[in-house]
């Protein structure tokens, strides 16, 4: 019964969405206020109905209602409650329902909080947002209905892939979707602005919190996915350039560019049409990420043939959304005149270069991801594009970005003098180079990876700190004066500093793992021990034997390892090799002991013929900094979000004086 209730409210939400797509748009065009205002209650109703529907699906999973086809295929009564609930979005239909629920949530928030938006802009934004929802509701109801019943319910479910019964993976999709869908708001604002024919600083101020929110969640979501791969897949890889990963990485790169170009629109009223284009692109990549991954077309051309109806539907949605918005863009973007004037050397130019690098990097990822498909369909060549390609073709752009970032961040708006701006950076520059040279001298061999990585990381971190120090005139005025200045700086400045430091930390983590990881593969019998080199001290790892254990829905071989450093016990590790009888699949649970200097990572394998077990051990230097860097970036976004200028009603003061904003409508 609850399932039918969920099904029914989904259909109702679809109806409301259709109404909300059409009525406010017509109202905005004709200037009919009551038609425009209809969008607000409709957006709220849509959200409530979709939430009810999603709640019904969660209930079905929680109670293991195997009369629902989706539950029977994706859950099992032997699973713990947390993973039963997580299974709701661990499949195609459920995850799409979650997607559209988040979409309606954001729509409702925009409707309720958007009191200070001009009525016509607000109506158009909500209408566009609803149009996206209509496409998703239709896709769900007509091709991917989660509420289909089985005539004969099975006795038990088909279980869930044991790899997916994991905290990291339970949390990964919701965050990623919050990011993807958050970009839909920026998209709706962009399309609405194109229809209105005006983009000004106030518009940028309304869009920026949405972009920031989306970017923050996307960062966390990607971080979760990477972390999950690191501890779950058994050899400590954290990024594979898999099409599925790339699908979340491309919107992230474009959203990063959007975040920065929107600042230029807000502060300098320039880069307007470019920013609109980025907003469209960022969401387009999100859609591609959601759909193409789900349909599997990138992994295999033949996946389309599995369910042509879904494939065709997806293509139509992509064509209408991306094609439609880009056409609108082509027709209307010329009406968006930029005002700000700036010289070749200025903060604006720095941000243009930032955008060039990020967008080109996203383009490289895109080309690499679709190339196997293109080569097979157009040229009949069956080939692979894997990590080595991306490492070579993508990395240079990120390195260039890291080189210019601290300089661009410290340049003043409009026009700058390099000599003057660099004055505070020379020290940082010299220190970073010296650090790289030190690493080069200390390391064995001449690989440049670690020296370059460390130089750039130091340059970014110290550069961000120096930027802040220069802002408060540290050392130039009395220290109390500096502190007072620090307190008065806008929150967004702290956000910028923290996020840029985070970028530096990520580069540091990546270079350290890649350059200095120690690996050991061997057969070990009980009592055997071996020595591995860490970044500061060396570690002796002793294998104390293995035993069989039984978990809630698996059996496992659990090894015991004692780790010594300088004759003292550092930790005891218990890696497991699990077997899940329901799905008949094994998984490894690596045992990891982590601190800020290194991760000790031990995996146990199968027993060997001659006795003993196959053992894989790693010392991974400074891995924690990779995740900390990601967190710092997300935290930077959070800090910027709490900036005063977004809390104070944008444009409210202007209105009080009875003045219009300066932007001129196109019509």
């Amino acid at each position, binding site marked *: 019964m609850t399932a039918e209730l969920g099904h029914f409210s989904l259909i109702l939400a679809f109806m409301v969405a259709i109404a909300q797509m059409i009525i406010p748009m017509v109202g905005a065009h004709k200037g009919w206020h009551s038609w425009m205002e209809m969008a607000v209650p409709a957006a709220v109703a849509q959200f409530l109905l979709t939430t009810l529907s999603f709640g019904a699906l969660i209930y079905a999973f929680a109670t293991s209602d195997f009369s629902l086809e989706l539950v029977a295929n994706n859950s099992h009564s032997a699973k713990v409650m947390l993973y039963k609930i997580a299974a709701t979005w661990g499949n195609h239909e459920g995850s799409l329902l979650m997607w559209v629920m988040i979409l309606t949530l954001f729509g409702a928030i925009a409707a309720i909080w958007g009191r200070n938006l001009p009525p016509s802009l607000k109506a158009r934004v909500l209408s566009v947002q609803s149009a996206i929802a209509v496409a998703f509701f239709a896709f769900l109801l007509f091709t991917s209905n989660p509420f289909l019943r089985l005539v004969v319910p099975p006795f038990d479910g088909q279980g869930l*892939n*044991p*790899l997916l019964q994991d905290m990291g993976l339970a949390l990964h999709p919701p965050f990623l979707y919050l990011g993807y869908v958050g970009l839909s708001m920026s998209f709706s604002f962009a399309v609405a602005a194109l229809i209105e024919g005006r983009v000004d600083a106030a518009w940028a101020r309304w869009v920026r919190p949405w972009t920031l929110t989306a970017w923050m969640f996307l960062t966390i979501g990607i971080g979760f996915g990477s972390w999950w791969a690191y501890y779950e*897949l*058994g*050899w400590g890889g954290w990024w*594979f350039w*898999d*099409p599925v990963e790339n699908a979340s990485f491309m919107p992230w790169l474009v959203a990063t560019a959007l975040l920065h170009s929107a600042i230029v629109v807000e502060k300098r009223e*320039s880069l307007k049409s470019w920013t609109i284009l980025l907003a469209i692109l960022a969401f387009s990549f999100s859609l591609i990420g959601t759909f193409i991954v789900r349909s599997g077309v990138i992994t295999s051309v033949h996946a389309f043939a*599995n369910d042509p109806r879904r494939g065709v539907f997806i293509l139509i949605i992509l064509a209408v959304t991306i094609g439609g918005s880009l056409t609108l863009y082509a027709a209307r973007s010329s009406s968006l005149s930029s*005002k700000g*004037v*700036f*010289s*070749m050397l200025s903060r*604006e*130019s720095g941000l*243009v*270069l930032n*955008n*060039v*690098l990020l*967008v*080109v990097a996203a*383009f*490289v990822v895109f*080309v*690499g991801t679709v*190339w196997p498909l293109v*080569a097979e369909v157009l*040229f009949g060549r*069956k*080939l*692979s*594009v*894997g*990590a*080595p*390609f991306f490492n*070579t*073709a*993508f990395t*240079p*752009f990120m390195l260039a970005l890291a080189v210019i970032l601290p300089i661009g961040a410290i340049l003043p708006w409009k026009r700058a003098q390099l000599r003057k701006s660099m004055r505070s950076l020379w020290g940082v520059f010299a220190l970073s180079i010296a650090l790289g040279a030190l690493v080069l001298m200390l390391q064995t061999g001449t690989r440049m990876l670690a020296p370059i990585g460390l130089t750039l990381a130091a340059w970014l971190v110290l550069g961000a700190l120096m930027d802040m120090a220069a802002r408060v005139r540290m050392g130039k005025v009395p220290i109390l004066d500096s502190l007072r200045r620090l307190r008065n700086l806008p929150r967004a400045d702290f956000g910028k500093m923290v996020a840029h430091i985070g970028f530096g930390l990520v580069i540091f983590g990546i270079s350290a793992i890649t350059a200095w990881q120690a690996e050991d*593969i*061997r057969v070990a019998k009980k009592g055997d021990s071996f020595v591995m080199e860490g970044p500061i001290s060396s570690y002796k790892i002793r294998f104390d034997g293995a035993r069989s254990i039984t978990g809630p829905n698996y059996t496992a071989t659990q090894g015991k390892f004692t780790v010594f450093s300088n004759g003292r016990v550092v930790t005891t590790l218990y890696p497991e*090799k699990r077997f899940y009888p329901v799905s008949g*699949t*094994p*998984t*490894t649970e690596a045992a990891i002991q982590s601190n800020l200097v290194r991760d000790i990572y031990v*995996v146990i*394998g199968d027993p*060997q013929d001659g006795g003993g077990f*196959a053992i*894989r051990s790693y010392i991974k230097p400074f891995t924690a900094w990779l995740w900390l860097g990601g967190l710092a970036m997300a935290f930077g976004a959070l800090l910027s979000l709490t900036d005063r200028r977004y809390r104070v009603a944008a444009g409210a003061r202007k209105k009080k*004086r009875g*003045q219009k904003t*300066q932007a001129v409508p196109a019509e």
Partner: protein
Amino acid sequence: MSTLKMMVVLLVVLATPVWAVLPDEMLSNPVLEARARDISQGLRCLVCRNESIDDSEAGLARDLRLLLRERLVDGDSDAQAVAFIVQRYGEYVLLKPSMNGINLLLWASGPIMFILALSGGIVFIRRRKNTPEPELNPVEQARLTEILSE
């Protein structure tokens, strides 16, 4: 491929990355072994999704690892060993696509796009630089005076 078959493949693929290079495969000569590891990171496990034979535990990946080591022990250079495997399994096995034919476009796409985007950016900035500073309209001018006199 039927849906069922597809699902089986997917399950196997998702659940496999458990164990890659096994101790019994490794060569006693550390230099050769290091070369083998290096090469196998660039070779695709043919039955896996986007995994190198170095990372994969699939049976076929193990066969390829052993084959590669055999070639290296027999005195093949890195390039010869890779060519040998490509000859048998096709270029699909290369995770780093070769730089020939249409693939040149793939490799050049980044640099070309960068040059285009950079030129676009420079043209845009130049045009910005040469645009005259917009004048304030009378209302704005009045407001400015008001602010300045506050």
